């Protein structure tokens, strides 16, 4: 079976109703992409402000207005750089435009609401995590004469530790998440597909499987079969269907001739029977079989 499942670490969150919701933590690549998108938007905003300011200044050459404009621009720049993240995370309940695009979300680790304090904390710490390394890298060469080598190495090592901190812990928390009690999770939208078990009479009404025949198969095989049957209709799917079909027929050692042309009705019937059997077992026995 050539099916790969990417399994992000699952964070078990206990809601106030004492239901355990399983959130998938965001991948580092996704978070980086979201961050870059957000920074790009900030840069575009600054550029827009600069252009707009320049335009207004050339149109209205009055010193008072120009100074006022410069002040407003400086303020906007400050808010853009420092408060962009805070503003969006507060307004849209933990999603900046970059995160929205990538399907990510910031949640509170303890299961409660994402409070304003949390948003402040996780964003203020970005100064240490991101801008400190940035300024250090950009300006270190200028002062290289004054910084002894060991100090440079030590600071670089410390900065590397901060930068790669998310890689060292299980849920990809960065320093800001640690200090705020937050977590970044994926918020994808799977569609509800039609149930593979249908009540329409299939073309091969007559395929039945005995309990003994279904015994060797377990939940893993059921999951894999479902994944294949839900794949979009293309060449790979046909190949896999044929593979599975052959494997099952071998296992079952059928005495009658199964359909050779199109394995799909057979597989669907097999799936329904296997699922019914396993669910029955699940309900009747007290042990966990998944």
């Amino acid at each position, binding site marked *: 079976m050539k099916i790969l499942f990417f399994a992000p670490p699952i964070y078990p969150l206990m*809601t*106030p*109703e004492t*239901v355990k*919701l399983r*959130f998938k933590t965001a991948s580092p690549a996704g978070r980086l992409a979201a961050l870059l998108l957000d920074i790009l938007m900030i840069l575009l905003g600054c550029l827009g402000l600069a252009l707009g300011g320049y335009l207004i200044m050339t149109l209205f050459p009055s*010193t*008072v207005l*120009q*100074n*006022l404009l*410069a002040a407003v621009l*400086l*303020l906007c720049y*400050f808010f853009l750089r*420092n408060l962009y993240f805070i503003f969006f995370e*507060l307004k849209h*309940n933990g999603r900046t435009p970059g995160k929205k695009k990538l399907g990510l979300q910031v949640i509170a680790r303890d299961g*409660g*609401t*994402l*409070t*304003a*304090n949390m948003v*402040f*904390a996780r964003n*203020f*710490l*970005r*100064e*240490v*995590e991101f801008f*400190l390394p940035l300024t250090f890298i950009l300006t270190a060469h200028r002062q290289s004469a004054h910084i002894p080598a060991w100090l440079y190495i030590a600071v670089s090592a410390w900065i590397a530790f901060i930068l790669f901190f998310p890689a060292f812990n299980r849920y990809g928390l960065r*320093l800001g998440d*640690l*200090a*705020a*009690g937050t977590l970044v999770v994926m*918020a*994808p939208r*799977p*569609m*509800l597909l039609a*149930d593979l*078990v*249908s*009540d329409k*009479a*299939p073309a091969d*009404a007559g395929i039945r499987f005995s309990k003994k025949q279904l015994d060797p198969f377990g*939940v893993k095989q059921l*999951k894999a079969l*479902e994944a294949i049957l839900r794949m979009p209709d293309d060449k790979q799917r046909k190949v896999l269907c044929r593979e599975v079909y052959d494997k099952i027929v071998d296992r079952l050692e059928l005495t009658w001739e199964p359909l050779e042309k199109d394995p799909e009705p057979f597989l669907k019937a097999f799936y*329904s029977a296997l*699922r*019914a059997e*396993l*669910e029955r077992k*699940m309900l009747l026995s007290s042990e966990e079989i*998944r």
Partner: protein
Amino acid sequence: MAGPTLKSYQFRREREQAWRSLEDILGRIEKMGFDALPAADLARLPVLYRNVVSSLSVARAISLDQNVLAYLENLAARAYLAVYRPKRALLETLRHYLLGSFPAQVWQVRYKVLLALLLLASGTLCGFFLVRDDPNYYYSFVSEGMAQGRDPTASPETLREVLYDEEDPEGSTLTTFAAFLFSHNARIGIFAFALGFLGGVPVMLLLFYNGLVLGAMGALYDRAGLGMDFWAWISGHGVTELLAVALCGGAGLALGGAVIFPGRYRRLDQLAMTGRKMAAIVMGAVILFMMAALLEGYFRQIVHDPGIRYAMGGATLLFWMAYFFRPSSEAS
């Protein structure tokens, strides 16, 4: 056919309608925002949420349809996020913060803020006495960008100009200056807080260094015979600004303390709890920085008399002491 007899199949047929309507409501929330939702839908949301949560529990117990399970997990998570959002309106949050939680939080960490003030003061004294005796120390403490022409080689007239800006009748450059000051100082404040994550020592060094710079400049003006004028200029806005720096420094020290001494809790939890509270303080400090910048920008132009400047300093000091004096909040 196996369909109708499967419990999971029947379960899904019964509940699917409710799931679809919840999905529809959530989609609308995410597209148009929470406030655009009509009241009827708003009332249905908690009911549908509980419905889907119970569906999830049932599905986990009886169904092996991976698609349904994944769908319900996700739907329940999205509904949870929609239901458990912040419930207070923005203005009310602001009011509650400014009048209640901000000063109370500061009062709770008052000893660390006092420590920060102490570090600033000691730095100032050191800088002052060092530079007064040997002006060359000035160059070690104050970088060129910060000095902007104010160094031991400047004449007393140049220095005086900075304190009493009489050449700018419209006061328009002040707006720019004030905005620049605010953003610059606020960034330093935020940095001081964030530095707390590395333990207390870097924050202490930063505070001490800021004090050094201040003291060095004071000595500079003292040598030019403008000592009293300089401190008058500083005190007008400086009380607010130095207090803001001390607040950020105190918050940073508290954060460092949480890293090193977690107390009864796990380090992670202690860090999260402290971080959240201290970030609230830093946000308030940013507001203080804004006020200080306005004072520095405009007050300096409008008022020239050193006596009034000192009076302003004293008045702001009393105001902040009264604002942050909250002994009754000790219990929380």
